[in-house]
């Protein structure tokens, strides 16, 4: 049993991996799709066997509290800035994510923030900070929802939003939105796998969690992950290292 962030589930990768995992290892993975914070909380309570999220600081804090055994990086994808196709803030003309953010703030273009302490939200806040902008005002809408719901809101408001590429590509309600900015390495988004600490919760299936970890870091997983494409775009880059 694995709790994962919504952005991972929305990417559609899970639907590719799960049947293969079942085939190769015999483990029937049950996915709980929740926010990053909730995913970690479920792990801390011992209600799942492992967690797959992307929010480094929170993960390390979680480990420090003795909730898990270790952190294993699996893969990364990247964030993109999605906005009105007309790009009123001209973010496409910038080369750095921070500049793009600064332009959005300058032009007071509507911006939807996840506002839910998720990995994406933390990334967004970090970007505002390095852009030297204190995001506030009518144009800045903190919605407090999951990735998909936030995208729906942005679509409804014709607003900019920071999204992970996978969620965006899989998103069905694109309305008038398009990617306006992408490619800055500072937008990389690292996913990590964290097994729950069996010393704290003796009932967790540590063995299965270990097996799953082995599989996720295997060449077989690499092929599948890197081969997963939507609209001819590769979404994830496998970067697991040997222990």
């Amino acid at each position: 049993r694995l709790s994962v962030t919504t952005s991972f589930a929305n990417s559609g990768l899970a639907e590719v991996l799960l049947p293969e995992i079942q085939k190769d290892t015999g483990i029937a993975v049950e996915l709980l799709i929740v926010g990053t914070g909730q995913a970690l909380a479920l792990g801390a309570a011992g209600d799942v066997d492992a967690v797959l999220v992307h929010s480094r600081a929170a993960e390390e804090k979680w480990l420090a509290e003795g909730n898990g055994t270790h952190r294993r990086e699996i893969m990364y994808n990247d964030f993109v800035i999605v906005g009105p196709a007309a790009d009123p803030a001209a973010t496409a003309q910038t080369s750095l994510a921070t500049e793009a953010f600064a332009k959005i703030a300058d032009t007071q273009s509507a911006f939807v923030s996840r506002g839910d302490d998720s990995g994406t939200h933390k990334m967004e806040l970090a970007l505002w900070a390095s852009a030297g902008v204190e995001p506030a005002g009518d144009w800045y809408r903190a919605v407090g929802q999951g990735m998909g719901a936030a995208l729906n809101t942005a679509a409804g408001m014709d607003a900019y939003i920071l999204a992970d590429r996978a969620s965006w590509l899989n998103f069905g309600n694109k309305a008038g939105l398009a990617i306006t900015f992408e490619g800055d390495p500072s937008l990389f988004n690292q996913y990590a796998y964290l097994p729950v600490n069996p010393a704290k919760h003796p009932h967790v299936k540590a063995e299965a969690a270990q097996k799953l970890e082995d599989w996720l870091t295997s060449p077989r997983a690499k092929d599948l992950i890197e081969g997963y494409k939507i609209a001819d775009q590769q979404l994830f880059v496998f970067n697991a290292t040997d222990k």
Partner: protein
Amino acid sequence: MNDILQGLSQAAQLVITGDADLVEITALSLQVSLGATVIASVIGLPLGAWLAVNRFRARRFVIALLNAFMGLPPVVVGLIVYVLFSRSGPFGVLGLLFTPTAMVIAQVIIITPIIASVAHQAIRELWADYHDLLISLNATRGQRIRTLLWDGRRALMTASLAGFGRAIGEVGAIMIVGGNIDHATRVLTTAIALETGKGEFGMALALGFVLIAVAVLVNLGVHFLSRTERGSRW
């Protein structure tokens, strides 16, 4: 378990310190839900009475439909309202999406069937009592409905309160059409969903307890107000 205790103490703390954010979202919750309840009652109560008073071919079918609509999934209602009011939808020009007005509209759709259905049941009993008399007195259809609504007002309060209860606790629809935007459309339930997503279970429960307290207070208030004019029989 701890979370629950923590939630209770956090709730007490928020209330005692009169937390500004809490006051804001609670006020919006009440405003949206009471607004929706009033509008839905204005539609649903006469509709329930109308269904009790009229015999027509499809009556049983309409009533079954109404009962089924009590179960309208909020998410679906939210989606439909979203589609209708989104920029590309037919009412997009009104620019109501992500405003409290849109939330009220969604809630009205959700709770009108509940109010109408519970009202219909109450009025049906009263109509069984009054039937012969009102027919004999040659009351028009409108007069019958008005008489039943007035004489059954105590039971109809339960109908409206059922609607209010559903509205104040609802989250699926208003999340979609309101967007849970901070300082604009965030209400208690969407705030709870947010805290839950963050894994802040204590805070989520605290807000939940505040919500329950608000609902209890509204119910008690209405009951005690109506008590002053209660009939002598009960």
